C-alpha cells in the first residue's frame, strides 16, 4: 500500500538533492570540527560558512546574523530566554500572542514564574493578531515582543511587518517564530522588521535536528547553550555538520524553487477546499486568504479527530488531528479555542498539510478515505442526526 503523507507540518520528507548533499558529505569523510585550526578543520569551516550564507540568502540576512541551532524549538528558547536574561536589568515585560507554539509559550511561562511579566494579546476568529493590540501592550519596561509568523495549526500568517514598524518605533526587539513559514513563503528580515527569527530545516525539505536563529546585528542576547566559542560565542557546541550541510542545500533549493512550489501548493489547496465543500457540516479554520499555501485545517462536526486519524491511517493516509484525545495531555488545542471555536467542534479538527511530493490524485485518494470515515463515525455518533 502506498502511503500518502499529508502531515508535512510535522516534518517534510528530504528533498532528493538534500539527501544527496548529506550522503556526499559522509562519503567525503566530513568529520572535521570547524573550530580546529588545521586543514581538516578548515574544510569543515568552509562547509559551515557556505551553508550559513545560503540560509542567510533565503531570508535576506547577513551570514554573520545566522546562528545554527539543533531545531526550531531551540531557536525559540534561545531568542526568548537569551533576550530576557540579557535585558533583565532594563525591564521584565514581554509581549506575545495566545496562539504561539509550545516552544514559545512554555519558555514564557517559565519566565513568568521567575518574575517576568508576560502580556498575551488575543487573536480574532481567523487567528489574526491585531498590531494595534501589540502597540497598546508596549510599556516602559517591555524588553521583547514575540509573535509567530505563521501558525502551525491553522496556517494564518500574522502581520509581522506592521508589528515590526511598531516595535522599531518603540525600540523593542521583535522575535518571530517563522518555523512554519521560512522556506515556504518569501521572507525578508528587513521588510518584516524582525530582530530575531526562528527557522527549522525540516519545514523546507531539509533534515530534522537542525535549525537556525536569525539575530540582527547589535541585538542584545545571551547564549542559551554555554561553552566554547562556536557560532561567534552565541551557541556553544560542535555543530551538527550533516544537518548544516542538509539545511544549507535545502535553503538554496527553497529560494530557487519557491515560485514553482507555491504554484503547486496553491493548486493542491484549491483541490482540498473544493472537496471539503462537498462534505456537510465542515468548519474551515484559519484566515481565508492570509494563510500558508501548504496547510488546511478544518473541523468535522459531530465526530472526533483521533478516530478519523486512525481510520485514515489504516488506509495509508497520514494526517494530523488537533483533537484533545490525541494530544497526549488530553487538552483542547489552545489555538482553536483562541479563535473562538467551541470545544466539541475543536474535537473534530484535522490538519491536511502537503508538499511538493503530493499530487491532486493523492488528495483525491485521501478524500475518498476521509468521506468513508466521516460517514462511518457520524453514523455511530449520538450527536449526529441524519437528514
Amino acid at each position, binding site marked *: 500500500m502506498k502511503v500518502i503523507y499529508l502531515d508535512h507540518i510535522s516534518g517534510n520528507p528530504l528533498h532528493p538533492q538534500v539527501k544527496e548533499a548529506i550522503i556526499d558529505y559522509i562519503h567525503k569523510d566530513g568529520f572535521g570540527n570547524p573550530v580546529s585550526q588545521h586543514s581538516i578543520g578548515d574544510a569543515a569551516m568552509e562547509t559551515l560558512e557556505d551553508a550559513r550564507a545560503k540560509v542567510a540568502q533565503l531570508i535576506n540576512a547577513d551570514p554573520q546574523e545566522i546562528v545554527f541551532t539543533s531545531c526550531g524549538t531551540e531557536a525559540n528558547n534561545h531568542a526568548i530566554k537569551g533576550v530576557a536574561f540579557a535585558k533583565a536589568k532594563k525591564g521584565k515585560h514581554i509581549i506575545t500572542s495566545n496562539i504561539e507554539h*509550545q516552544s514559545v*509559550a512554555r519558555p514564557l*511561562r517559565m519566565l513568568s514564574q521567575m518574575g517576568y511579566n508576560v502580556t498575551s494579546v488575543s487573536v480574532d476568529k481567523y487567528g489574526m493578531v491585531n498590531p494595534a493590540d501589540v502597540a497598546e501592550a508596549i510599556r516602559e519596561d517591555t524588553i521583547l515582543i514575540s509573535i509567530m509568523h505563521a501558525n502551525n495549526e491553522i496556517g494564518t500568517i500574522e502581520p509581522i511587518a506592521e508589528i515590526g514598524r511598531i516595535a522599531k518605533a518603540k525600540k523593542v526587539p521583535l522575535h518571530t517564530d517563522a518555523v512554519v513559514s521560512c522556506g515556504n513563503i518569501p521572507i525578508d528580515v528587513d521588510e518584516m522588521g524582525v530582530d530575531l527569527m526562528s527557522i527549522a530545516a525540516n519545514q523546507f525539505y531539509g533534515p530534522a535536528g537542525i535549525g537556525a536563529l536569525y539575530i540582527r546585528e547589535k541585538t542584545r542576547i545571551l547564549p542559551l547553550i554555554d561553552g566554547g566559542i562556536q557560532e561567534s560565542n552565541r551557541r556553544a557546541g560542535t555543530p551538527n555538520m550533516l544537518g548544516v550541510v542538509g539545511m544549507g542545500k535545502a535553503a538554496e533549493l527553497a529560494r530557487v524553487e519557491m515560485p514553482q512550489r507555491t504554484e503547486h501548493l496553491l493548486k493542491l489547496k484549491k483541490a482540498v477546499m473544493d472537496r471539503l465543500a462537498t462534505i456537510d457540516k465542515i468548519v474551515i479554520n484559519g484566515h481565508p486568504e492570509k494563510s500558508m499555501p501548504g496547510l488546511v485545517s478544518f473541523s468535522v462536526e*459531530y*465526530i*472526533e479527530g*483521533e*478516530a478519523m486519524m*486512525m*481510520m485514515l*491511517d*489504516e488506509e495509508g493516509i497520514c494526517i494530523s488531528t488537533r*483533537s*484533545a*484525545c*490525541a494530544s*497526549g*495531555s*488530553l*487538552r*483542547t488545542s*489552545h489555538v482553536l*479555542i483562541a479563535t473562538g471555536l*467551541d*470545544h*466539541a467542534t475543536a*474535537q473534530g479538527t484535522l490538519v491536511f498539510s502537503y508538499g511538493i511530493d503530493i499530487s491532486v490524485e493523492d488528495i483525491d485518494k485521501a478524500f475518498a478515505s476521509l468521506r468513508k470515515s466521516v460517514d462511518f463515525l457520524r*453514523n*455511530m*455518533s*449520538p*450527536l449526529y442526526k441524519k437528514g
Partner: protein
Amino acid sequence: MQYSDVVMDHFKKPRNVGKIENPDGTGEVGNPICGDMMTITLKVKDDRVDDIKFNTFGCGAAIAVSSMVTEMAKGKTLEEALAITKESVAKSLGGLPKNKLHCSNLGADALHKAIMDYYEHKEGKVRETKEGEKVEHIGEREGKCYCPYCDAGLPEPTPICTHCGKPTLQHSDFPIVKGAKEE
C-alpha cells in the same frame, strides 16, 4: 499506534452500533466538551440483557470501549452486567493507554446507568446498592483533579504532577482534565 490489537479490532469493527427503538433502559454519560460521549440502549428479557446497542462520540479508545462493553453485557443477567467494571472492560481490551483509562473508559458507567434506568422505569423503583458492592460512577471524580498520565489524585491543578513529574497543564488558564462530567 498506542493501542492493543483488541482495541484496534473493536475500533475497526465495532459491535452493536446503533440505537434500540423503545428501549427498556437508556444510559448516557460524558459530554462532547470533555471529549467523549456515549449512549447505551438496552432491552431486558427474563432479567437478562437481551439486546444492547451504543452510539459514541469519541476517540478510538472510547469506540472500542463501547463496543467491548456491549459485547460483554449481551446475554448476561442484570446482576452480572452490573458487575462489569471499567477495569474488566480495559482488561478485556488488552489494556488501555494510561491517559485514556478514565476519560475514554465510560462504557461501564453507561451500561450501569442504562440498567438503573431500566429498574427505575420498568419496576418503578431504584435498585438499592448492596452492601460492599462497588459501582463506580464517573460523578464520584467530580471536582477532583487527576493526572492524565499516572492517574494520581492532585490536590489542585498543579502544572507538574506531584506523583510522576509529568507536565499536567499546557496553559494555566485551562482546567486540568477531570474524570468528572456534568450530570
